[in-house]
């Protein structure tokens, strides 16, 4: 392979990644050389600019045909475009959160790193979402993981932060090992790491033993990745880590990291296991045959997330459990494969809704906890009277998380339900668990609203909102309501731009 072949690839398709990478470099150099007294908060705006530029370049790439570089180690298909868009959008919001982040003991001199580690993590997620190759996928995943391990431990003097980071790294290491172990088997039974090739080999596979190993690999990869999305059985780190992590990082974990997890799940499952034959006769698809496992894990995730959240007094822990539950809802869509018609757009829409509402919630939490130094739910008390607009925004997010009509959360859930019912036999049990979980979630979600509106004021301090947070809140509120009332804006966009994601697997 010579230079010309190298140049023959359409590297323009990687523009967003390059922009993010470049921004990271610029940030790290600036951080290194700028005088110490220089307020590094400004770097956040630079990072934001980078993300926005990346976003714009991605939008300009939307009309591109599917691009594949270097035998699929990078591919820009509709799936990648769609999810990268979300990743960038979410990351932009989180950078704004991070801009306004002022923990009690301060980030001190590490604010610069704080910002560009977000970018590297984002880069990892982006690489992951547009890779058609196990190695790239794995490297991207690890880039994301390593960045987030560090981010979680950023508040060095905070013992909770240390502990969270340690827990995160240990669990993350185990999950990586399990995933990798699974991947090694996948490589073994297919002899390739290119998803397209693997898919073809697996579809043609009729040997029972190889299929069995493939199944083992499937479960290992799935359980390993369930760490990323914080789903059962690998969900337990989430509450501790969220609690210890800086709030923007917790938001990042619950939104971007989770999204990346779903990206990898969808990439792997849809390209490999959807077409792989599920038995030696090739009569059933592998996923079709084994979706009961995912379904039970999804159900378990929903139950655990919602039920344990009932007992939480710490806001971040509560939203950790809530995010577990939401991962469960999304897994329902994965398990049922959206009934065949509602998978990718459903997951995409739900993740978008989740970005909006969850980041909004974390913005409020960050605001309040940095004011009061506590993360107990009682800091919400009396917000309704003290700062009604903030309270209203919070209410919108909570209602959306609870899936109340008029918000994006509702439309997202509705989509998932459609997928569970459309086939015969419908996944009624799973849908039942999901709906029951939703009702249980009312209890704690509305418990927060009870604090906000019914309880006497917690502290009379006026809440000062930084402009960054202002923007986040406004975007999230508008988005949550807009896509709840007129979801077709999003649906039409995704259908017009990406159709049915038909270019998912390289046809080579």
């Amino acid at each position, binding site marked *: 392979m010579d230079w010309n072949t190298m140049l023959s690839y359409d590297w323009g398709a990687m523009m967003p990644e390059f922009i993010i990478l470049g921004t990271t470099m610029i940030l790290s150099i600036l951080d290194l050389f700028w005088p110490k007294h220089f307020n590094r908060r400004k770097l956040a705006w630079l990072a934001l600019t980078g993300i926005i530029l990346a976003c714009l370049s991605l939008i300009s790439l939307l009309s591109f045909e599917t691009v594949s570089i270097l035998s699929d180690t990078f591919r820009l298909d509709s799936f990648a475009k769609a999810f990268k868009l979300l990743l960038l959008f979410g990351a932009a919001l989180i950078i704004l959160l991070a801009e306004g982040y002022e923990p009690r003991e301060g980030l001190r001199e590490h604010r610069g790193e704080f910002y560009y580690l977000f970018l590297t993590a984002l880069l990892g997620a982006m690489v992951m979402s547009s890779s058609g190759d*196990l*190695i790239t996928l*794995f*490297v991207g995943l*690890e880039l994301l993981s*390593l960045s987030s*391990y*560090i981010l979680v*431990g950023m508040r*060095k*003097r*905070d*013992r*909770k932060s*240390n*502990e*969270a*980071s*340690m*827990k995160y*790294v*240990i669990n993350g*290491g*185990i999950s*990586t*090992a*399990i995933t*990798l*172990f699974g*991947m*090694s*088997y996948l*490589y*073994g*039974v*297919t*002899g*390739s*790491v290119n998803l397209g090739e693997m898919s073809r*080999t697996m579809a043609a596979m009729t040997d029972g033993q*190889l299929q069995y190993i493939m199944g083992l690999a499937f479960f290992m990869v799935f359980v390993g990745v369930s760490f990323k999305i914080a789903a059962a059985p690998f969900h337990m780190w989430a*509450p*501790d880590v969220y*609690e*210890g992590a800086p709030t923007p990082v917790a938001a990042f974990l619950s939104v971007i990291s989770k999204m990346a997890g779903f990206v990898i799940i969808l990439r792997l499952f849809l390209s490999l296991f959807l077409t792989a034959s599920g038995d030696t006769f090739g009569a059933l698809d592998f996923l079709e045959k084994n979706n009961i496992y995912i379904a039970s894990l999804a159900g378990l995730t929903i139950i655990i997330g919602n039920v344990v959240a009932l*007992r939480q007094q710490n806001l971040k*822990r509560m939203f950790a459990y809530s995010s577990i539950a939401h991962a469960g809802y999304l897994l329902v869509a994965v398990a049922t494969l959206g009934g065949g018609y509602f998978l990718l757009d459903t997951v995409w829409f739900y993740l978008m809704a989740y970005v909006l509402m969850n980041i909004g919630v974390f913005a409020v939490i960050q605001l309040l906890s940095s004011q009061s130094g506590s993360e107990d739910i009682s800091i919400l008390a009396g917000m309704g009277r003290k700062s009604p607009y903030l309270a209203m925004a919070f209410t919108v997010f909570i209602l959306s998380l609870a899936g109340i009509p008029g918000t994006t959360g509702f439309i997202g859930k509705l989509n998932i339900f459609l997928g569970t019912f459309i086939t015969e036999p419908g996944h009624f049990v799973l849908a039942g668990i999901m709906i029951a979980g939703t009702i249980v979630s009312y209890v704690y979600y509305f418990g927060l609203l009870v604090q906000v509106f019914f309880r006497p004021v917690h502290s009379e301090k006026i809440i000062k909102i930084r402009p960054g947070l202002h923007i986040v809140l406004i975007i999230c509120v508008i988005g949550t309501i807009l896509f709840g009332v007129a979801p077709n804006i999003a649906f039409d966009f995704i259908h017009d731009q990406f159709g049915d994601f038909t270019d998912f697997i390289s046809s080579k």
Partner: protein
Amino acid sequence: MTGVPLSAYLVLALVLFCIGLYGALTKRNAVIVLISIELMLNAANINLVAFSKFGVTPSITGQVFSLFTITIAAAEAAVGLAILMSLYRNRKTVNVDEMEMMKN
């Protein structure tokens, strides 16, 4: 040529994986936990390399993959240790089971 069969390598990898896992989940010292995780990654590497020779379609890819893995493992070990340092500085312990400030 009747060499060592693929399954032998795979079983070895499995055994090492299990040992690593056991170590990671039972050892109290965080350093050992981290190193056990390395062992687990190593086990996966054995799989990759073995499949690269004896797989369905033998190729060098498995070895390349394992190289990536080794690098990542090293990076992870470094980061893990760094985290352990900052934890140790605040808590004066490296015991995993003493990390229970946050629970329930």
